[in-house]
């Protein structure tokens, strides 16, 4: 590495039982990498993500996860995540431990992880029931005495994000809604970045985040690898897919058949997208 096949990077860098964070706040969600975790049958993962949406619904439904650390687990704009609900409500396909936070708490925990601090501090979790159900403590400001919340830092074993592009040396550039990806990469012991394309030289872009090659373990080309999420400047969010996921995921058998057809029986993101197009052509 740094430039590697996604399948090789996942095989070498992600181990069963690891704590893995796939981040991307509605934009640049690393779906291709999530699919590769499923294909390789990773087990016992602690999955960390602010907004576990479709990609984590798939990982949970396929039995990859032991625990979920999160702050909002829904299908954005659509409704529930049926695989997440089935795991929490019925223990299918296995029990799922939850560590639940607020967005502000998760963001502070990632920022603390990137800074190699033991905890993040915020004015949060006040008066609500979550504080008693999660890993958060009240601390006093040493200067004013103000009571604040402390959340333990996120230090994932592996951080995985998707970006628009990298250069041949492995420097990564992403822009648009940049979410918590920089913090995820800097907080993690090992990192995989999938990219839309590898270019000779990164042109500077306003508002872009640049991750130097030496903080990234593997850069893996995965064009359209965020689908059904999007890559700003490359392709739009597939809103229809998110709506369709509600029907696909509601039923266990239909979900498993879909995952077999489109993930387990495909080798990479190109085959995955081709399989979706074939199905569309049949049902059109």
């Amino acid at each position, binding site marked *: 590495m740094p430039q590697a096949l996604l399948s090789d990077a996942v095989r070498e860098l992600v181990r069963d039982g690891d704590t893995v964070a796939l981040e991307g*706040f*509605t*934009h640049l969600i690393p779906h291709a990498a999530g699919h590769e975790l499923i294909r390789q049958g990773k087990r016992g993962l602690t999955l960390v993500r*602010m*907004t576990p949406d479709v990609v984590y619904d798939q990982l949970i439904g396929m039995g990859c996860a032991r625990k979920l650390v*999160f*702050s*909002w*687990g*829904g299908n*954005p*704009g*659509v*409704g*529930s*995540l049926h695989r*997440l*609900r089935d795991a*929490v*409500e019925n223990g299918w396909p296995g029990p799922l431990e939850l560590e*639940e936070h*607020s*967005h*502000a708490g998760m*963001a*502070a925990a*990632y*920022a603390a992880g990137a800074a190699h601090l033991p905890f993040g501090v*915020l*004015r*949060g*979790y*006040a*008066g*609500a*029931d*979550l504080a008693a*159900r999660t890993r958060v403590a009240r601390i006093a400001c040493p200067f004013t005495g103000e009571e604040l919340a402390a959340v333990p830092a996120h230090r994932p074993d592996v951080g995985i994000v998707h970006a628009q592009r990298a250069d041949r040396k492995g420097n990564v550039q992403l822009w*648009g*809604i*940049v*979410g*918590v990806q*920089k*913090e995820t990469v800097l907080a993690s012991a090992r990192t995989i970045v999938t990219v839309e394309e590898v270019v000779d030289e990164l042109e500077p872009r306003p*508002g872009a*985040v640049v991750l130097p090659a030496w903080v990234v373990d593997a850069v893996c080309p995965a064009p359209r690898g965020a689908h059904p999420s*999007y890559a*700003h400047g490359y392709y*739009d*969010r597939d*809103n229809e897919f*998110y*709506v369709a996921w*509600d029907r696909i995921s509601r039923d266990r058998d239909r979900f498993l058949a879909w995952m077999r057809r489109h993930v387990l029986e495909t080798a990479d993101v190109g085959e995955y997208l081709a399989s979706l197009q074939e199905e569309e052509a049949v049902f059109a």
Partner: protein
Amino acid sequence: MSGYTPDEMMAVQASRRLGDGSVCFVGIGLPSVAANLARLTHAPGCVLVYESGTIGSKPAELPLSIGDGELAETADAVVSVPEMFAYWLQGERIDVGFLGAAQIDRHGNLNSTVIGPYDRPLVRLPGGGGAPEIATGVRDVFVMLRHSRRSFVAALDFTTSVGDNVRVVVTDLGILEPVDGELTLVAVHPGADADAARAATGWELRVADDLRETEPPTAAELHALRALRTKGAAA
């Protein structure tokens, strides 16, 4: 009642309460409709902040998710998620925050976490997301929620966020505001009355002595609202 839907009425009522220049933390669905409507009608200076990190978004169409590309393309600034919550929300730069929920109690406390016990929920809901700190970090919380006994409950199954800053609850039957710490029906929409609101509330609902009737949407409001036609019908 004819000529507009209950959702349109709710969006219009919430929109009218947003001042020109007010800075709003907007979620997806009705809050996004209401804030965009305000921006396109009486409050062109209304600043829309989406938790994905976009500040001053001016979408021409309603987004399906809080992170649609158009929100970033039309924004004054795009910031990271840690910055959004630390500098902007916790930094007290936001005036109004919209919240929805599965349950609300008479004090404006909200539940969007679970129905049933936390450890063995009957229904696992998506969870609080930004709500716990929005509820305490903005000056005014606006709640938008359809009126029913399932949602307006005597006791929450879980307190996701606290009601201290809730200034108004807009429902499909009317408007509730806190009076002496308890949500009180202060207005009803045309076609609804206090009895209908009482029947849809799981506690003994207080009703203001000077109960008002809300003004129906104007033609201009409905025109602007419908032009914002949502991309995803399910949103």
